[in-house]
């Protein structure tokens, strides 16, 4: 297992570099000179623009700029933000916990609701619980999170006054953002969990378990669900990307801190170092989470071995 993890980590290095190279190139393809943007409106002379471009190192050939970026990266240095002049690593360190918390709470809520509704839907197939769960899922998948956010604020903050409209300040502040982000997510989990469990429940070993006189709860939760979870866990890993992109929107709407809103600000200002830093961190998280997913397969299904 340790070897497997080590190999996977080494194997993900090219992915990370590939991503930075891609982002780097895309950023430089978009028109708009960061130096000019920074000096916009300040009556800068062309000489000042050239000077700033030199100060930022933007006058060098692209390959040299990228090489420099990689070299510094290998030394653990993500560079300095054009915009705030803070170290990018520091910027990300400040913003990351807020996004991580939001993502985690969302995951927990979504997984809780999704698994619960999925199991109930599969067990009481076509019953009213299943119908309810299906309706909930269809809505959740159909409603975009930016609209849901505004709707939840109107209902729970403005009209009922139960929760704050701004998504910060402890437990109460995270409920609405997490719900906005988590509903669609839980809907997907519900659908997949239900379908997967229905399939597993039709397997011969489930009949065997029943035949041995096990109680329904034990059969479903211990025997069937564990196997049914494999595709669900895969989905959780894959959906992390959606979760992070959803965070961009939800953080902005709820006025929350986070790397989503940091990314938006950086992109608007063409703050190359910050954009690259954020993308790199997100990619890293993605790689790690999917590694975790692979490891979990082994825990869920004894037939899976790594080594």
């Amino acid at each position, binding site marked *: 297992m340790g070897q497997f993890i080590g190999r996977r980590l080494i194997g993900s290095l090219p992915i990370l570099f590939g991503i930075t190279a891609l982002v780097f190139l895309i950023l430089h393809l978009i028109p708009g000179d960061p130096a000019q943007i920074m*000096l916009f*409106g*300040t009556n800068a002379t062309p000489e000042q*623009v050239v000077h700033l471009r030199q100060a930022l190192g933007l006058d060098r050939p692209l390959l040299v700029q990228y090489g420099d970026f990689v070299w510094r990266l290998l030394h653990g240095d993500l560079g300095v933000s054009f915009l705030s*002049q803070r170290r990018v690593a520091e910027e990300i360190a*400040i*913003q990351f916990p807020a996004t991580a918390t939001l993502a985690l709470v969302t995951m927990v809520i979504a997984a809780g609701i999704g698994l619960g509704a999925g199991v109930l839907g599969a067990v009481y197939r076509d019953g009213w619980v299943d119908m309810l769960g299906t309706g909930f899922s269809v809505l959740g998948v159909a409603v975009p999170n930016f609209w849901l956010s505004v709707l939840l604020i109107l209902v729970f903050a403005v009209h009922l006054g139960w929760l704050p*409209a701004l998504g910060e300040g402890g437990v109460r502040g995270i409920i609405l953002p997490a719900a906005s982000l988590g509903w669609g997510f839980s809907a997907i989990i519900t659908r997949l969990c239900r379908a997967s469990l229905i399939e597993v429940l039709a397997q011969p070993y489930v009949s065997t378990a029943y035949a041995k006189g096990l109680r329904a709860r034990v059969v479903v939760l211990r025997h069937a669900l564990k196997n049914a979870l494999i595709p669900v866990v895969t989905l959780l890993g894959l959906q992390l990307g959606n979760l992070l992109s959803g965070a961009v929107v939800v953080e902005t709407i709820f*006025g929350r801190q986070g790397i989503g*809103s940091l990314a938006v600000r950086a992109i608007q200002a063409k703050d190359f170092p910050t954009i690259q830093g954020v993308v790199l961190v997100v990619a890293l998280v993605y790689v790690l989470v999917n590694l975790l997913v692979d490891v979990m397969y082994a825990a869920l299904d004894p037939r899976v071995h790594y080594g």
Partner: protein
Amino acid sequence: MKMRRVRRALAAKALLPGERAGGVRLTRRGLLAGAAGFGSAALLGPLVRTSGTTPAARAATASQGRVVFGMWQSPESLDPGTSGLISSGYINTNMFDPLIWHLPGLRQGQDYFPGLALRWEVSPDAKRFTFYLRKDVKFHDGTPFTAQAVKDTLEHIVNPETKSRSAITALGPYSHTEVKGDDVVTIVFKDSNGAFLNNVATAGLSPISPAALKQYGYQGVSQHPVGTGPFKFQEWVPGSHVTIVANPDYNWAPAVAHHQGPPHLAEITYRIVPDASTRFNALRTGEVLIAENLASTDVTVLQRAPNFTVFTASVTGMPYAIMVNAKRPPTDDLKVRQALEFATNQEAIIEALYKGIYQPAHNIFLPGTLSYDPSLDKMYQYNPTRAKSLLDEAGWKAGSGGIRQKDGQPLRLQFINIANFGFDQISQLLQAQWQDVGIQTDISGQSFPTVAETYNKGDHNLADFFYYSVDPFLMRALYACDQVAHGFNWMHYCDPQVDTLVSKGNATADPTKRIPFFRQAAKLAMEAAVVIPIYQQRAVFEASNRVQALRFTVNGFPIFYDATLRA
């Protein structure tokens, strides 16, 4: 100085119906940067009225109450010498005191009022400005305020390491500063800098503690701002909020303020809420007590609501306008440009989009800007008949489909918008108005930083613009021949006569001598029909009725010094 009103811009933008989304934000940021600087000159605007009435009514009670201000944009720096963003300007205006206040129109015959400087002298060539400073002022860190602090602040601004965006422009052709004792300082310029008094009255050039500059460095001071203002820095959580608290030692409020001593409020939190509808909702739930840049439909709702007050403050500079490219056919023809002016019905646009919020504009300056000439407003009034005859004279004859033609070519204009900048609906209304006189307009949009490059290249016939400035010297940035390739002269308009008039207007600091030059330059620019003014933007803020005695600088930044919070 340019867009000083940055925020305004923003505000305006946000007000547009349906404009609340992210796009808006983007734009503004760009603008802000541009605007830089100038900002804030005027804190006192409203203050002035009471001036003298209660000079020394020392606040007997301790500062109390916490106000949360919902603003759309995150500051990027709290160093007034660096930042160009309105959001930074809002905060810095309350943490830093300027040397002097610029409050035109508040008192007959007086434009400037003492701040940290009790009096000042300007040399006739406007190259040397001497300030006589107060001796009883301390920075938030306890450092005494002296002439050396003024010098250190300016040296900080011009140091390349600071990477100043707006203050360095507001400062102008700086040469050096002469310290003559602790309380006398002379700022020397290489060239005449008639606009300097207006600029020195903004937060951008306000003194920073020399001890802080030394301790935190030119970069670090952006996160550790130390000024002499009524509020001092407490915390900045990036992406979330900035909190400033009352300075208990504050005892040097300008005479025009309503009270002396520490501010009434104990704390102000500038909460960053990028989404306009969330700002509106947070205002309704009471989570924020004052908000900016709401959608115009929401502003209308609040105007009718009993528990809220909509504050508007006039600003100076240039109105929201369309710039006409004088180089690219067919708008290279003066008659075509004049026809556009006559075919434009600003009143109808206001009626459709901003009723009760903004006024139509017919001048390249906003009223209130030094040298604004009301007689120029009459030059172009809506007159479609006149527009048609001008087009006839220019050889554009009625053709098929109602679009005029010349040599087989239809009369088509490329209208490139700054996307989500508040111009999208305006451009559609203009398209319809111009269609009536036989002009076809093709509208497209590009996002902010990109569009500036397009405009500089001149691929457009029509561009969007607005500009906040505390001084008519803004014409230098907008109309100068050398601003076509890189600056804001998106009209690609070059008249050396205008350049000369503008530089003469800046060769003295005496407003009465400056005005004729700028008026003449403005007349020439308007005769060239390179700007189609649309509406006069204003600063618009929405607040709970609990917030009382809120005041604004000339450029519309909220001043919390005299404000109180009702229970």
